[in-house]
């Protein structure tokens, strides 16, 4: 097997309870690794600590126990090898599309010329070149999310952490964006950890799917997606095995039996 790019070793995360009394365990004893150029999805009920794992991987919050490793090095803070993307596009309204793409590389201190070159190349690749001088409010939701992806890729990270990146766009736009992401990841040989609620998204975009339990979140299953064409999610949707995988994931999450619970209690499907 190829080298391990991202690894979680026995990660536990506790938060102080809202009333300050006890501690709330978000994730407990999570261990898994993502290999070079592999795409792994993480699914599980709301509140199972998926986003916590992403924050730990990007170095924004240190875990209570255990460690995350990127390229074999322990994550002690934000680092240039990892970039994340959220459901919110987080575009800066006062920057043009091109300036938003260069936001990360600018902070990392790349020469302005190189920043501009990267932005132009990425925007051309995402068919957004003609919008590079536009402001975010002039773009559709799908375009904005594509700009956010370009900004993430501009720093040329080894590992991409994606937290429900397309859950705020409509179903058709989402399929187009999933295809773009899949192609980009394949072409650039990027490693990615994708957090999603969308079982079809997990199956069509990934090499492996990890299933998490309700809080405290642990990994309860790992499913290898044995389908060709990871760069073509639309073709994968037509694959005979697609429905079996989705059905299997539904069973593992026990969706048929989960009752809707109060907000904050998890399982808000």
């Amino acid at each position, binding site marked *: 097997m190829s080298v391990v790019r991202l690894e979680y070793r026995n990660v536990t995360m506790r938060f102080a309870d809202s009333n300050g009394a006890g501690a709330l365990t978000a994730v407990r004893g999570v261990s898994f690794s993502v290999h070079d150029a592999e795409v792994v999805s993480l699914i599980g009920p709301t509140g199972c600590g998926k986003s916590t794992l992403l*924050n730990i991987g990007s170095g*924004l919050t240190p875990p209570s126990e255990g460690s995350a490793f990127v390229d074999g090095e322990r994550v002690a803070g934000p680092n240039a090898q990892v970039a994340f993307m*959220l459901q919110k596009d987080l575009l800066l309204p*006062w920057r043009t599309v091109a300036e938003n793409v260069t936001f*990360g590389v600018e*902070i*990392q201190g790349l020469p302005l010329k190189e920043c501009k070159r990267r932005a132009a190349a990425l925007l051309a690749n995402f068919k957004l070149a003609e919008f590079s001088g536009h402001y975010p*409010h002039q773009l559709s939701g799908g375009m904005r999310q594509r700009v956010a992806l370009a900004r993430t890729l501009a*720093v040329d990270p080894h590992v991409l952490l994606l937290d429900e990146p397309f859950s705020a766009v409509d179903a058709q736009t989402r399929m187009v964006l999933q295809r773009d992401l899949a192609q980009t990841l394949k072409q650039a040989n990027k490693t990615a950890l994708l957090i999603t609620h969308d079982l079809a998204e997990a199956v069509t975009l990934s090499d492996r799917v990890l299933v998490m339990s309700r809080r405290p979140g642990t990994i309860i299953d790992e499913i290898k997606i044995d389908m060709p064409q990871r760069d073509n999610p639309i073709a994968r949707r037509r694959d005979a095995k697609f429905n079996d995988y989705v059905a299997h994931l539904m069973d593992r999450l026990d969706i048929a039996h989960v009752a809707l619970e109060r907000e904050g209690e998890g399982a808000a499907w």
Partner: protein
Amino acid sequence: MVNDTRAALVRRGAIASIFLLVAFLAAWQWGPGLLGIPSFIVPPLSSVAAEFVRAWQVYHLPLHTGVTAAEVLAGFMLGSLLGAMVGYLLGMSPTAELALSPYILALQIAPKVAFAPLFILWMGFTVYPKILVAILIVFFPVMVNVLTAVRNVDPDLINLARAFKASRAQIFWRIEFPSSMPPMFAGLRIGSTLAVVGVVVGELVGGNLGLGYLLTFGEGQANTPLVFVSIVMLTLVGGIAYLIVILIERRVLHYLPARGVGRNI
């Protein structure tokens, strides 16, 4: 087509506005006479206009207007600068905000114009007490808006910058500072009109320069038209200050989407 209807709307609005102005001026000219109001209570437009010419020639109206405008400008600029600086500092330091908030609240509740006599005792019949009242009065709306804006920056945006390894200074200049611009301009708009209030109160209390002085001078002589002239000029000074803020705001916030009818007011 959509643009056409909008242009038509604006045109109709402008025509109605001009019509209202003409009606108001006409009412001012002939209304008092028709209602039997004596001219020392409400002087008709023509006598106010005549007094304007006289004040220009005899009472140094341009000088008084200039002094007031300069005081407004100085008070507004210093007050907004201080307000913005304190707003950013408190916004970035929750401890400082907690420690200072009761005092800030007390100062905010205290009617700032009541300080005018005190400042005149301290600094004499100069321009400084007037500027100081304006500074104090402009300070709060700007500070509160900047403070709230810094507080309300999306934490995910800060995390995004942090994940790119941004320094504290980079987070401030690239995220917090530009995010605070729209609320800050809302504060500056309020401040630009309040600055006039601060300056006038200072001038009413003491000194022999400025439109506020001219106003009390007119009052002392029972010269009602001169009082009206002073009020009109003060409105003009405040209006120009407000307009300047709007023009700068449009330049700085050019990236914001247009906000429909009446967006410039």
